[in-house]
């Protein structure tokens, strides 16, 4: 079927099957930042924004995106670049495979709550698994960014 949507600010027309998942559609569109880490909505790697709200693209049909605006990390490079350097300074990017998912969710968090506490950050990102970093370095990076904004 044909779907029309806005992808990273650009109006596009896509052709999908009824069963096509949004994650597969987005990767076919060249949005390689969208990663699959499981098939059961447990890992958070495939997080994208639909009309500004974070969703798991592995659990949404591509057809559901019709008429909506989808943003992936490809379309939010500048907003991400503001804070990801602080995470890099901690070495907390590690293998990187989970990074786009938690970076997208962090963008959503900071839009919703520009000055979150550590516990609010942990709770908001709880659905974003990371097997490498032990999570603390990611938190220190985000905290470092928030503190730098206050200076």
């Amino acid at each position, binding site marked *: 079927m044909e779907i029309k949507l806005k992808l990273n600010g650009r109006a596009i027309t896509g052709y999908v099957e009824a069963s096509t998942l949004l994650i597969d559609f987005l990767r076919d569109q060249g949005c390689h930042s969208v990663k699959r880490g*499981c098939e059961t909505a447990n890992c958070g790697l495939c997080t994208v924004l639909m009309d500004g709200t974070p969703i798991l693209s592995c659990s949404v049909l591509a057809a559901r995106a019709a008429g909506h605006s989808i943003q992936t990390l490809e379309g939010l490079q500048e907003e991400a*670049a503001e804070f990801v350097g602080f995470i890099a300074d901690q070495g907390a990017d*590690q293998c*990187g495979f989970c990074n786009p998912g938690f970076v997208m969710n962090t963008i959503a968090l900071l839009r919703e709550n520009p000055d979150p506490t550590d516990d609010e950050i942990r*709770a908001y990102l*709880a659905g974003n698994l990371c097997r490498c970093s*032990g999570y603390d*370095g990611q938190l220190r990076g985000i905290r470092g960014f928030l503190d730098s904004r206050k200076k």
Partner: protein
Amino acid sequence: MENRTYKVVGKPYRKKDSMQLLLGKSVYTDDLVPRNHLVVKLLRSPYPNAIVKEIRTDAAKKVPDVVAIYTWEDVPQTRFAIAGQTFPEPSPYDRLIIDRHVRFAGDVVAIIAAETEKAAEKAMKLIKVTYDVLEPVLDFRTAKDNPILVHPEPDWEPPCPVGGDNKRNLVASDSTEQGGVDAVMASCDIVLDRTYHTKAFNQATMETFRTYTELDRYGRLHVISSTQIVFHCRRILSRALGIPKSRIRVEKPRIGGGFGAKQTAVCEVYPAFVTWKTGRAAQLIYTREESLIAGSPRHEMQIRVRLGADKNGKIRALDLYTLSNTGAYGEHGPTTVGLSGHKSIPLYTGSLEAFRFSYDVVYTNHQSAGAYRGYGATQGIFALETTVNELAERLGMDPTVLRDRNMVKEGMIMPAYYSEPANACALDRCMEHCRRIFHWDEKYPVRDMGNGKVRAAGVAMAMQGSCISGLDVGSAALTLSDDGTYNLVIGAADMGTGCDTILAQMVAENMDCGYDDVAVFGADTDVSPYDSGSYASSTTYITGMAVEKACNQLKAQIRAVAAGMMGCAPEEVVFEGSHVRRIGSNQTVSLKDISYKAQLFNDQPVQTTATHTSPISPPPFMVGMVEIELDKETGQLTVLDYMAVVDCGTPINPALARIQTEGGIVQGIGHTLMENVTYDDRGKPMESSLMQYKLPTRLDMGRLRVEFEHSYEPTGPFGAKSIGEIVINTPAPAIAHAIYRATGVWHRELPITAEKIVFSKPE
């Protein structure tokens, strides 16, 4: 101990690939490969032990867009091993690409290649298989000499003599002893005899196993794979497919996590076989379920510890017997087991009079185990450290003081560690440091919080190696580029750990240049100098020394070119980073000019390769302390604080060393409290998704604090040892200790879930 200050080494530089990763660029296998490849899917056996009586693929082959279906009748009949190990591998040659005899629920029965995933999946459903279902061996404690043989085949072949016998379900067995254990044990005031059971935890790398294969412009097999072992992978494919290594090229792009999982060629042979047969590009991406049920998890082990001590807490004798479950195939079976003794017993070199370490490694009809960070040491350290904690509690001694009296110290020879020396050992300082920052004296006493919850603390020590001594080979190729910067090419595999970065830091330090003046590339068998690969904690220590050698060789080459430019002998000039100077004068030529000269009417190379190996494997050491809060009514356990002090020699990049430690601790917490690989009574795996195989989230770990005690390893680059594996070893024994303190129960089987805690009673 050397106390030099460095310009680049010891600084927390960002990883070379950080911003690419954090901004989600296309850097992983599936991001990089062309889209018009065949999709490869594997039909897997539902039975843990069966013979394929008949397999009919005619209906499946008629599905539109299906290109090929292969069964056991189509594959080469040479057995091979998929363990990424130096030739000749200790792991037995016990696999075929597809074997008629399937040995675990998930073993491959057919390979399907189609233009689309949908067609492949449709075809899979139409393949008709009739199985001759056999009784499986599911309990590893009954596997040895069981009448049911997992590998009855006559062409089973061990490339190394490791004490295996397929007619006994035995992959390996051995025993070493020193000092007369039985006599010393008989004269001990106290002997503890305890048995522990650890499970087959999954690495659960965020990027599942995956491989892309194509024929390159020369018609050779070009493999792009998420692997830690490009060179071993090439050798494995060469044997499995029966084609020369010169016809194969293996490269790895960025890797979404390894932890040892990708030290085994888990999925490479299948798309490679498809490409070799069809000439078409092919890609196989494991689902999370496939990665969980047919991956390469940790070896399940049962470890019996006999510990003999005197009444003052002097540990005099240790006797370990490990039974290891390698599952359906023998990958890493003969080697992981060794670490359960060789990397636990030496912790007590300080007082030990005698030790014995023996083991059996058995086949069962579980998924094949493999390499996982810690590689057997994790299991052995859980067993031994828990026994030592029990000794302390039995004697009424502070367990940290007990360890002070018994631990290995710098300068000692470690008889249980192949008699290698502890050249650099700050374990005593780690203990002191950790006690201080953790406030051990305040936290060790059990505190009743008055709300049904108690707080308690536990402690453990750990060690690992820094390579496989006398075996691992690392290399570095270093070139002076034509603007005075450097290109480093390695065969080691950065899997997120940051080895590209720390090796570049070493080049910058040696060549007296900026970190950004060093570009790194790896790993590609066509381009990289030979390296065993990134495993056994060896990259910093082994490849790092190769980098140091390469730098010294390149400096000599640069001096030779410069001397020519200044019209003098190379002995008359000195390399000073940005330029070369004639000794005793102000005459210099800049590095940039030297690099241009190297490309103009020049016969002196400014490009060199160096190789390193080591007869010893200096252990890093660490101490971990944990404070928990335990709800006595529900058994719910919360990790409040985890503190660790690590001696990895010189941390080349303290930020990355810290993250390694934090990540290892959280994986260890997962193994201790929630992760498990289990099978039902018919041998079917129970954990097929991340909903069932629980990984720790941000909410499951307490506050982490990691610090370092420096030591200086004279045989390592800048005094460095290793960091990657040791860090996973302390959580299980430390948390088990804290649980005992809170409940009076020693849990000797992992994981220790809330249910187990609440339903257990003190002995």
